Structures are given as C-alpha cells and as structure tokens.
C-alpha cells in the first residue's frame, strides 16, 4: 500500500524549498522520495521526528544533516497518523500528551491534591524520622553558634545565673543532655531554649513571677524543647517542606513557588504550636514529678497573656500564650491527680534569683 502527496523538502544544506513527490510506503514502513538530481531517499518511520504545526505535518530526519519535509495534504497526514497509531509508532510521551485537555485538567487537580496531602502527612513524618539521623553533635554546634553570637552583646547576671543553675539542679527534668541556664538582664519578658541545652531566661520574665512554682513551670517547658529536639525537628520540617515545594513547584512557575513558600510558613507555624503543646504537657509532668503545684504554670501563662511585649526569635520557638494553652493546663489540673509540697530549698533559691 502506497500513498502519495506533494511535499516541500529542505535538504539541510540550504533553505531552498524543493517540491518533491512523497511516497508513504506502508510495507517498508517509511517514506520514499526523489530529489532534483534524481537521487532516491528513503526515511524509516523510526528515524523521523514528527511534528504537527497547525494543519501542517513536519517530518524531521538526520542528526548532523538536518532535513525536513513539510506536508499539507490532510488525507495523507491522517493516513500516516492512523498507520502510526495502529502499528505502535506513537511513543508513551505522545500518548500522555494526546490524552486531551480534560484529562490533563483532572490530572493537574489530582496532582495538586496529592501534593497537599503529601505536604500535610508525609513531610512531617519524614522530617521526624530524619531528625534521628542527624547526630546530636549538630544540635550542639547549632546551639553553640547561636549562643555565642547572641550572648556577646547581652549582659549576663552571673550570680543569678549561678542560683538558677542550682535551682534547676534540684529538679528532675527528664533531660538526656546537660542543661545550662543563663540569666540575662533585660526587661523583655522572655525565655528560650537552644538545641545544645542552653536555656536563656530574661530577668523580665523572672521579675513578673510571684512564686517558685512558676519558674519550675517555665524550666520544665523549656527543658522539654531541648529533650525533644524541637529546634532540630522544626529545622528539618521547614527544610524538607521547602525542598518538597521547590522540587514539585519550582519548575512549574515562580508564582506557584511563592504560594508554596507561604503555605510552608503557615505550616511551620502550626508545627510550632504542636511543639508548644508538647512542651506544656511535658512541663506539667515535670512539675508533678517534682511535687510542685502545677497551678504555677497556669498562673504564669495567665499573666503572660496580659503582657504585650512577649516575643521570641521566630525560628527557635514562638510561644504565643493562647487561651487554648491555658485551657488545657487548667483542664489537667482539674482532672489529673497529683501531690505537691512546699520545697524550702527551691523557695530560697528563687528569692536569690529574683532579687
């Protein structure tokens, strides 16, 4: 079976169009044509790159010498296409492209949903697992660097620092690594934990406290951040979230990447809320373990809620004291059983720290 049409041939040497008679040979699976000097050419279907531009079919052949044939005959083109389809000459990529707009829109929506689900469920899981792979050594280095950079310009109260360390020594904090406390003179009502076990407490927050139980609550909370490697987890989540977003969307386009970045930020804020909750629960447990009245934590939070300048470096942990947090602590005070007794040693040390 042979079909014929007139095509325009470009010989890859010049841009002169040459009119040729093109023969589609279905038995030999290729195209035959003669050029001006009566030279016979045969192109095998497998060696041709097919391109459809509007209603024109473009056949491209050769690597070093690029030759082209343009065909305009609609019947001829459809006959070639039918043959290629029937005999498996359409590759998988073309088949994916040929699925049509409707399927592609559905596919796009499906991919979007897949990404969102992956983002919400897979990323946190992967990050959590990958934290285990990062040596604790790295936590220490990260914390050290931050501590050195930030403490150089802060005024450390050495006697209060000493007292706070003694205070913490009296407590069981469930810690796996050595915790080191520092009291910094600042009116900021603030405290934060670094991944290497450095916990920094500002005098502003201590001054606002009325009893040592509140300080135990704060220490328990911060110790939990260190014990659970929250900083590193946060870093891993942010990083893997960012990598995920940029891998998937980075190629698609810039706008999507920007949207992705914002989603990432919102997501990391909710991660941090989750970490705060865990630290609160652990802090509560530490208080009962040490026979301290857990009401102290609730009292502290209620007072902090009233404070306006309660801010903390974003990437370490953001501690907005919300009604929700106070709510679940009060709930635990009501429902859990605990015993507490006055601890004169802590009381004495607290006085030293405060004044």
């Amino acid at each position, binding site marked *: 079976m042979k079909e014929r049409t007139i095509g325009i041939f470009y010989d890859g040497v010049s841009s002169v169009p040459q009119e040729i008679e093109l023969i589609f040979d279905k038995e030999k699976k290729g195209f035959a044509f003669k050029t001006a000097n009566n030279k016979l050419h045969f192109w095998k279907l497998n060696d041709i790159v097919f391109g459809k531009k509007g209603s024109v079919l473009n056949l491209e052949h050769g690597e070093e010498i690029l030759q082209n044939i*343009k065909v305009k005959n609609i019947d001829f083109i459809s006959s070639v296409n039918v043959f290629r389809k029937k005999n498996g000459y359409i590759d998988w990529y073309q088949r994916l492209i040929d699925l049509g707009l409707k399927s592609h829109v559905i596919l796009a929506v499906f991919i979007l949903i897949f990404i969102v689900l992956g983002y919400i469920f897979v990323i946190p899981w992967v990050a959590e697992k990958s934290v285990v792979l990062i040596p604790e050594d790295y936590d220490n280095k990260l914390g050290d660097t931050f501590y050195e950079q930030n403490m150089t310009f802060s005024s450390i109260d050495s006697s209060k620092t000493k007292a706070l360390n003694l205070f913490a020594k009296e407590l069981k904090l469930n810690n796996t690594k050595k915790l080191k406390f520092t009291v910094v003179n600042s009116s900021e009502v603030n405290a934060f934990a670094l991944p290497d076990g450095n916990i920094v407490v500002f005098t502003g927050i201590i001054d606002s406290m009325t009893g040592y139980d509140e300080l135990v609550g704060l220490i328990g909370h911060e110790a939990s951040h260190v014990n659970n490697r929250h900083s590193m987890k946060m870093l891993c989540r942010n990083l893997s979230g960012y990598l995920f977003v940029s891998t998937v969307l980075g190629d698609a386009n810039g706008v999507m990447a920007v949207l992705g970045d914002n989603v990432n930020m919102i997501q990391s804020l909710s991660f941090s809320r989750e970490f705060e909750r865990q630290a609160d629960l652990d802090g509560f447990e530490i208080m009962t373990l040490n026979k301290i009245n857990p009401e102290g934590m609730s009292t502290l939070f209620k007072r902090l809620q009233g404070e306006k300048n309660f801010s903390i470096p974003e990437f370490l942990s953001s501690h907005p004291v919300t009604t929700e947090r106070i709510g679940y602590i009060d709930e635990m005070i009501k429902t859990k059983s605990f015993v507490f007794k006055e601890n004169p040693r802590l009381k004495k040390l607290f006085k030293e720290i405060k004044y």
Partner: protein
Amino acid sequence: MDKPLQSSTTYELQFNGSGNAFFSVIVVNWLLTIVTLGFYYPWAKARKLQFLYGETSLNGDSFSFHGTGKEMFKGFIKAIFIFVLLYALLFLFLYLKIPFIGLLLFYLGFFAILPLAIHGSYRYRMSRTSWRGIRFGYRGDRKELITNFFKWIFFTIITFGIYGSWMSINLRNYLLGNVRFGDVEFNYDGDGADYFVLNLKGYFLTVFTLGIYSFWWQKDLFEYYVDNLSLNQDGKEITLTSTVTGGGFAGLAIVNLLIIVFTLGLGYAWVVTRSMKYIFENIKLEGNIDLDSIAQTEDNFKDATGEDISDFLDLDFVI
C-alpha cells in the same frame, strides 16, 4: 556598497502555540517530574523548549529545538560536579582555618563560571535550534568573552555599579553579534550611555508615578532590545522594529495576574502563550534577505553544561 536596495519585503514572525497545548506539556512534565522524584527535570525542560520553539514560526515554517533531556542531564551532572568542587574548595580552606583565601577563591571561581556558563549556554542553545534544517550558531570566543567580562566587572565595581549599563550592552553586543543563522549574521548595535539614560528615566518616572510608568519602561527596554537588532547576509539586511506599547504591556500584565490568581497558578500555560503571542506579534521584520537562500554553516554542539549552570544560577538566557 551603494547598490540600490532590492525591493524590501516583510517577514512574518509568529507564535502559534495554544494555551491548551502548552498546559498539556506542563502537566505531563509535572507528573513525570513527581513520579521520578525530580530526575525528569532536564527532560521536562527539553520538552518545554521543544514546544515553545516548535510553535514559533518564520514565514510559516516553524523553528525546532533539538536539545534532548539526555544532553541536559549530562550537563546537569557536570554542572553539579563543578559546584561541588567549588564548595569543596571553600570548605577545605575553612578547615585549614584560612577562610579569607577560601572565600576569595570561591567568589573568583564563581565569577569565572559566569562567562563560561553564558558562553556554553549560547553555543548549546543556538546550535540546537534550527529553521528549515538550517542551524543557528554562536561563534563568540571563550577567552575573549572571559577577558572582557572581567574587565567590565572591574569597571562596574570601581564605578559603584554605574558602568553596569555599559557592561550589559557590551555583553549584548558581543553575544548577539556572534550569533548566526546559517550564513546570516546577527548584529546588535546598542550603546551603554543610551541604555543608562533610558533606565535612569524609567526608574525615576516609575517612582514618581507609583509604579505605573513601569510598563512604559518595560516597553522602552523591549524596544531598545529589538530595534537595535539586525540580520545581515552579504550586504543585505533584515531590520527589526518593535511595535509594543506601554498600554499593551499593562493590559497583558493585568490580565496575566488575574489568570494566575483565579486559577491558583494553573493558568500559567495560558499566561506564557498569550505573552509570547503579544511579543511576536509586535516585532516587525523588514528587509531584503531572501529566506530561501540561507546556507548551512554551523555545526552541532551538544554539551549542555553551560546551559545547566545558567539554569542553576537563574541567568536569563537572553541578556
């Protein structure tokens, strides 16, 4: 050279791609990139370029991009290797406690890569682009480009950036001046001073008009880019003229923004195709070169390393 010009003709440069078709290309790329955990990226890029070039036509015949994912993947690996080497060097010096020398070498290496990447990228892209089987080509000299590049960088630094305008125009003159399309030579005739004034005016008027003038600034830049470009073949010439307007750019940008916002980004394909259409519709080509008489002169060049480094560094291909 005082031969009377042969009767001048116009040429038709068009972008024919539909948003629907481009959307299909993007979605399939997206799917394959995810399934392969990102490894499809070079192939995806090749598909995208093949589509965009293939849908652009000159006098009814389309351009072709012959670059393949495999070539770009190889280039990608080489590019990664170069960056790893650079960082290894930096860390070696940090380890040896001489960070200053490490950083100096790192930045020098980084700057040295730039012209190399531009050179490689031009050679690759041009030689892999064809029209009627006639290849484009870039014949710039690597050494010359590197020497000039460092000279211009130096001037830019000592003039606190003012020379930057001259640098970009010199670079454009050099790069585009060395582009060929078979035996047709490209020529770019820009002037740093004009470019500087144009940007100065654009900047201040944009600030004074709270950003509104930016579209007219964009129009001026585009015009400067297109109008100074010409093609030559044995004393014959094709000149390019831009007919874009600031209002046109403004309309284009506003509608594009709306499409992106209301489709949550999925309308990106249509944004690209309508922008391309607008741009190509507004470039007028006129001259006396016979497009049926272009001879093949350029070789294949399949090393995509420069192309991939440029991609890493987010260098815009056309400078």
